[in-house]
């Protein structure tokens, strides 16, 4: 009984999910915010009044005004332009890490769950070991040895990130592969690759999409935190966490230099979390209209 329920639940088409989301106000709000941020990221070169790394030392730490709507930072760079370009960095890194982690994790989880045996054992034990590091400590270890920078941060995040996907996909695969439709496909003589690709993968896509939606804000927060520590994005990259770190020295006189990037990070993370909550509920009808969902 339980297996059939999971199968039906996970086979809900994505279009239904989209429909459900448009009826969920919080998720809709999150989705619109995400789209707005994506637009800002895409259109940053046209929206930004200045080059985000162009220094204008004569106007360093200028207050908000006509020329610089949100003022300038200590290097005389346009704060507004840097905030807009910051959406590019955060969204790009979020998508990159989420995409890579989801891709690698899904393939490994599928194969491990489907075949079981030694591969499965290795996967689970590797997970045990990597999960023994507190996330930030692992990232610090990687960045501390390979050197600070966005590339190494992304590397560390992917190395940690795929595990979650692999574990979830493995779990779903394990429960699905005992279903009659899989047995039928085997009986028809389909190859293992075809069964995994055509019959199991569509069933794990839902959970993977939900997980990826939550992975993006996690990544954005982690990258911002690392950049804040001076170990992620390096100057003059207009990254929100790095801007926040640079702005804290002028907190007394120009608090907006520190407040604005933080607001951007918060809004972005909130937007993806709301969207993720909505997606999760839409793909899992059991939870619909249940107060736990909030």
């Amino acid at each position, binding site marked *: 009984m339980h297996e059939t329920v999971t199968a039906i639940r996970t086979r809900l088409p994505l279009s239904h999910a989209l429909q459900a989301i448009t009826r969920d106000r919080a998720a809709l709000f999150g989705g619109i915010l995400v789209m707005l941020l994506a637009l800002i990221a895409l259109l940053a070169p046209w929206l930004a009044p200045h080059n985000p790394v162009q220094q204008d030392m004569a106007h360093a730490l200028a207050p908000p005004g006509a020329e610089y709507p949100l003022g300038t930072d200590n290097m005389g760079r346009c704060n507004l332009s840097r905030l807009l370009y910051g959406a590019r960095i955060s969204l790009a890194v979020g998508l990159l890490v989420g995409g890579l982690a989801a891709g690698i994790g899904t393939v490994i989880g599928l194969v491990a769950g489907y075949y079981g045996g030694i591969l499965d054992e290795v996967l689970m034990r590797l997970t045990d070991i990597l999960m*023994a590091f507190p996330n930030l400590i692992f990232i610090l270890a990687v960045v501390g040895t390979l050197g600070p920078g966005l590339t190494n941060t992304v590397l560390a995040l992917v190395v940690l990130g795929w595990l979650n996907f692999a574990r979830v996909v493995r779990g779903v695969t394990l429960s699905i592969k005992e279903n009659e439709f899989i047995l039928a496909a085997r009986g028809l003589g389909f190859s293992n690759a075809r069964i995994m690709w055509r019959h199991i993968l569509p069933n794990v896509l839902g959970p993977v999409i939900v997980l990826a939606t939550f992975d993006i804000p996690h990544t954005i927060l982690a990258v911002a935190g690392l950049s804040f520590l001076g170990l992620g994005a390096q100057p003059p990259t207009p990254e929100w966490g790095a801007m926040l770190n640079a702005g804290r020295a002028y907190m007394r006189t120009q608090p907006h230099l520190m407040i604005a990037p933080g607001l951007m990070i918060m809004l972005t993370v909130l937007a993806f979390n709301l969207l993720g909550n909505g997606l999760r509920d839409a793909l899992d009808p059991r939870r619909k209209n249940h107060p736990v969902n909030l």
Partner: protein
Amino acid sequence: MLKYIARRLALLFFILFGVSLITFLLMHVIPGDHAQLVAIYRYGFDDYSAQELSSVRKDIGAELPLYQQYLWWLSHVIHGDLGYSFITRRPVADEILVRLPATLELAAFSLVITVLIALPLGVLAARRPYSRLDNFTVIGSLIGVAVPNFWLGLLLILIFSLTLGILPVAGSGSFAHLILPAVTLGTGMAAVSTRLVRASLLEVLEQDYVATARAKGLGEGAVLWRHALRNAFIPVVTVLGLQLNHLIGGTVIVETVFARPGVGKLIVDAIESRDIPILQGCVLFLAASFSLINLLVDISYAFLDPRIRYEGGKS
């Protein structure tokens, strides 16, 4: 039960072995000759002789093949010898232990704040879903999760230290120094915990035994405190275990924001000054402590819930 504990202990040893191996290997991907690095720090740049270099090599076991180097290093680690800091030249273990109390103090106080916020708020919200308080709780925790802790810390400094002038900006030593860092860390964790307390209690309140308790005429208060909360506690203990991950990462950030001389700040400083032995020691120390506490959490809730013993014992 004993069998379960034995199994988890075996897993712990395996994990610690893996953790030590990864930590060791990470430090070996550093570009350049490790022995040369040590010699530079020990004798000064360009000031060391070939003889001194080879004695350093012997000291740190660098002339051995890689797997023997690992065993050599492991045998020292097991005896509490984590090497010497490049910068202060003091034992790494001492440097960590000196800073540990500041971190533990921050962690403990933050957890107290988390529980004081999350438990009452989560319970009250779950009692009346969709009420005004419930909505406030849900929205508050959504926002709380999205606020970066380094930003919250700076905002608190801006308000309470720079504007109102009632709390110190940074540093450590007194209780006043502890308030802002602990509030920063505690409220962030409370945002997650409140939602989880609420959700797990809501799920328990739907169970049949809760309906039974109500049917036999127990008051709502007795149902909640005697039947529901006790069972909702198991996920909450798990959550506190999971929060440990946030807690350790959070101390790194918060200690840096507030210039608190704890283990977290030690790591960040070590990365900036390329003090590899300190970095390695801290990573190993924190990962090992993390695994150990997780084990204790697992065992303690196996005591609380017999179902976990049987299911967990199998996998």
